Structures are given as structure tokens and as C-alpha cells.
């Protein structure tokens, strides 16, 4: 395996991990309190939501990856963007329908608990907030933050998938199987490895924010660099693992 490919895998895995971490910091997640309308954000765990969004993106990205027979920079960008848009759509629909449930099912107005005025639409937040809660629903600033966060996370996941599929576990390594099966092995190996790396980074980032965050306007967002350093190191080691696996698969040697 030549060093340039190895470097490409390493760099893309680190970038993917960093984007996953950044995405986790930007999606508005309220965890368990959000399900009771006691905290702003989506009513589930950070990791699960980000993982769900990224996997939706991964599904579309893997479909789009079959459009291209040979890997090229254009293909890489298009596949990663497809994944990003898939994840973004999943998150947008989820946040919008969650808001519909808050507004029509529980009769609460989406407000932020961390800022007094919405930084984007300049709407006042505090008068609309129920006392003794930390906000409820997904206000506009959190919505846009989550939109961008899911886009970045999906981009990272799909980027890792594309690079691992075409460079770490390419279908050409399994010539004795048919073309369809070789393609399937390559996709499955890349998909599971990308999911493993993605979820590890997402979990470390979720620990950094303590499980809940409102978006980029939340004071917790300032903790981002700490998570990015940790995720970069962990992703680099994961990338190294993938390179070792790929090196072994290609018969060793240098």
C-alpha cells in the first residue's frame, strides 16, 4: 500500500472525525428533559440523533457512490455532499415535526433558555419561557444550528465512507468473487468501519457537552476546542487501525 493512499485515508478519517465532533456540538439536543418540555432541543440523546442522521446520509451517499465507477476528487465531493444533504434533511424534518408536536400537541412556544434574544431573528425569548424550565421546543436559532450541524456531520460520515470504500477496502481486492459481491463486501466493510469511527467521535463530543446543548449560541459551545483535540487524536488512531487493516488485506509489505 503506497504512503500517499495511507496519508489520504488518515487525513480523511481525521477530518471526518472532527466534522462529526463539530456536528454534535451544533445540533440542539435536550436529552431526557426535552421530552418533558423542560429543556430546549430535540428530545433524545445526542449520540443517537447524530448517528441516525449520519446513517441516513450514509445510505444516500452509498447509493450515490455507485454512480461512479472510478474514484475522483469530484466523486468524493459529490458523495460527501449527498451524505451531508441526507443527514441535513433527516434532522430538518425531525426538528420541524418535533416543533409541531410542541406547538400543537403540548401548546408550548419554542423558546431558547440560554439566550434572552434569538441571535438570528432577534425575537425576545425570556417572556415566552415557562418559569423553572430551561426553555422548550426548537427555536429558530437552534433550528439553523442543527441544520448546519447535521450537514457537517453527514459530510464527515460520507467522506469517511467514500475514502474507506475506495482506498482502504476497494472492491478490486476480492477478484475471486463476482463483481456484485466484491462491491458489497467493500461497501459493508467501509460502512461499518465509518460507523464505528463516527460513533466513537460523536460519543466523546457528547461527553464534552454533558449530553445537552442548544446550538452554537450556547455557552457550552465554547468547550468545542477541547473535544476537537481529543477527537483528532482518537480519529488519528482509528485511521491508523484502518490503514493497518488495509495494509494486511493488501498482503503486507511497503
Amino acid at each position: 500500500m503506497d504512503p500517499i493512499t495511507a496519508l489520504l485515508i488518515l487525513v480523511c478519517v481525521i477530518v471526518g472525525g472532527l466534522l462529526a465532533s463539530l456536528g454534535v456540538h451544533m445540533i440542539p439536543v435536550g436529552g431526557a428533559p426535552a421530552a418533558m418540555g423542560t429543556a430546549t432541543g430535540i428530545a433524545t440523546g445526542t449520540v443517537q440523533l447524530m448517528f441516525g442522521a449520519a446513517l441516513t446520509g450514509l445510505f444516500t451517499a452509498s447509493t450515490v457512490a455507485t454512480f461512479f465507477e472510478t474514484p475522483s476528487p469530484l466523486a468524493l465531493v459529490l458523495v460527501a455532499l449527498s451524505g451531508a444533504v441526507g443527514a441535513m434533511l433527516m434532522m430538518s424534518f425531525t426538528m420541524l415535526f418535533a416543533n409541531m408536536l410542541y406547538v400543537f400537541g403540548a401548546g408550548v412556544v419554542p423558546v431558547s433558555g440560554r439566550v434572552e434574544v434569538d441571535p438570528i431573528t432577534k425575537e425576545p425569548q425570556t417572556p415566552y419561557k415557562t418559569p423553572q424550565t430551561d426553555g422548550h421546543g426548537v427555536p429558530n436559532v437552534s433550528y439553523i444550528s442543527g441544520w448546519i450541524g447535521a450537514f457537517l456531520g453527514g459530510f464527515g460520515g460520507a467522506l469517511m465512507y467514500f475514502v474507506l470504500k475506495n482506498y482502504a477496502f476497494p472492491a478490486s481486492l476480492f477478484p475471486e468473487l463476482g463483481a456484485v459481491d466484491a462491491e458489497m463486501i467493500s461497501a459493508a466493510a467501509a460502512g461499518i468501519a465509518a460507523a464505528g469511527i463516527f460513533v466513537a467521535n460523536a460519543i466523546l463530543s457528547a461527553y464534552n457537552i454533558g449530553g445537552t446543548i442548544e446550538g452554537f449560541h450556547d455557552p457550552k459551545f465554547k468547550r468545542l476546542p477541547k473535544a476537537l483535540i481529543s477527537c483528532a487524536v482518537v480519529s488519528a488512531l482509528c485511521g491508523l487501525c484502518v490503514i493497518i487493516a488495509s495494509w494486511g488485506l493488501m498482503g503486507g509489505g511497503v
Partner: protein
Amino acid sequence: MTVPTAPVEEEEKKPEKGWPPTETKLGIIAAVLGIIMTILPFMPSFVKAIGLTFVLVWGADSVRKTSRYGLGTGVPSIGVLAVGYGVIGAIAGMGIAKVGGDFTIGGVEVLNVGVLGGVAIAALIGYISGIFSNSEKFISMKIPGLERGMTELGVAGTLAFLLESSMVAGTLKLDAVLEDVFLSGAIAFMFVMSAIGMFHPFNACLGPDEDRGRTLLLSFEISGLICIILGIVSIALGAEWLGSSSLGLLNAALLILYGIVVWVVFYAKFVRRSFEASYEVVGTGLIKTVK
């Protein structure tokens, strides 16, 4: 996601009849057993399954001791972290095993120490992420023993994947494993069930009266379920054992039998102990009114 409400106080009761062993003792037993079963790929599947069972119990114990203090994101996250590291460590280990470290006698892969490289890398990743998570300068979770817990989880996750792959594919070389385990998609099943096997016991038993011995019984039970499905998968794949397909069928049948026996024994044990430990078991009844 359910969030632990408060740090649960540790009230170690006297272990009855040597069960449960202390955390360190269990870790050593499980690691040694798991590694021995992993590096001997020629062993019948149900023997490897014993290793898998102990590895999952060890992982569940590590999840228990780290998430007792409240992680902020619920118990499941740390179990998924373990399999995330585990799948990466396992493919690295099997990649090393593909090029070296194996001893083959008469076409049968007898010993394979190359995979231990992957286990070591997973341990390293787990330890480093534990340091980052606990360090004041970084994520600062301040959970005592998190470094050790994450290291153990990385190793347990990797060993679980290696054992499961070798149970289905009969070998630890990455190309053969990819053709059997990844092409069939059984890897997805392993991914989620290994995670469930590690975090479900503590997640399901969470509460102030949680008892370590009872919690760990669940992990045994889940490993039985994993063995049943993996046995069915290896029958469908027509896996061979010692170069013979009829022996392979016997091997898979024994694995299913092992799974059923383990599941029945430990499920019954868990149900019985839960009934005993409950405040009261009533057929039906009203609730007491709150003043």
C-alpha cells in the same frame, strides 16, 4: 435515553458462593479466557463462545463501574463506544493476522497471535480517550477509574468482535472474515448485539437496589442469544471446521445448543432473583395514595 438520576451508592454485599468475583478478578479471568480462545481459531465454536460470554460479562461490568456516576448521556453511549473501538481494533488485528503471526498445521489454522496487535491498539485508543475524557484540560468528566474502564471496554469490544468473527468464519484472516461475516451482513448483528450485551444489563437493572451479581447474569443471557443467531448464520454460510463441512455443521449445532442452554439457565436465574429482590410480587393490586 434514560438518564441515571443520581450516583448510586456502592453497597457491596457479601458475595455468595464466590459470585460475583471482584471487578479486578473478573477482568483478569475474562481477559485471559478471551485471549486464549481468540488466538486458537481451530477450537470448536462453543468453546470460543465461553470466551465470548466472559468477555461480554467483563464489558458489562466495566460499563457498570463507569456509568454508575452518571455520564450525562445515558448508559448506552459507553457500550456503543466499546463496540466502536472494538470493530476498528478487530479489523486492524485481523489485518495483521492476515500477513503474519499464524501457525498452520495441515491446512488448519492452529494459533494466531497477530490479532493481539489489534487488541493492543484498541486498548491504547481506549486508554487515550479515557485520559482525554477525564483530564481537567479536556473533557473533564471526573469519573474515577474512567481510564481503566475505557481501556477495558476497548479490549472487551475487540475481543468480542474477534471471537464472534472466528465463531462464524472459523478463521481470523481478514479476507476470509470479510467474505463470510461482512458479505452476509452478520457484522451489523454483531455490532449491535455486542453493544447491547455490554450496556443492557446495567441499563435494565438501574436503580438504588441494583445488585452486581444480578446485573451480570443478564450479560450471560444475552451472550446465549448471540450464540444462537450466530450458529444459525454459520449453518447458512456452510462454514467448515477442520476442513470438513459435516464437522462444521456439528460445530454450529453445538454452538446453538450452548446458546440455548446458557440462555435458559441464566434467564431463569435472573427472573427468579428479580422476583426475590422485588419489594413485593402481587398478582394485581391498587397503588397506595400519596398524601
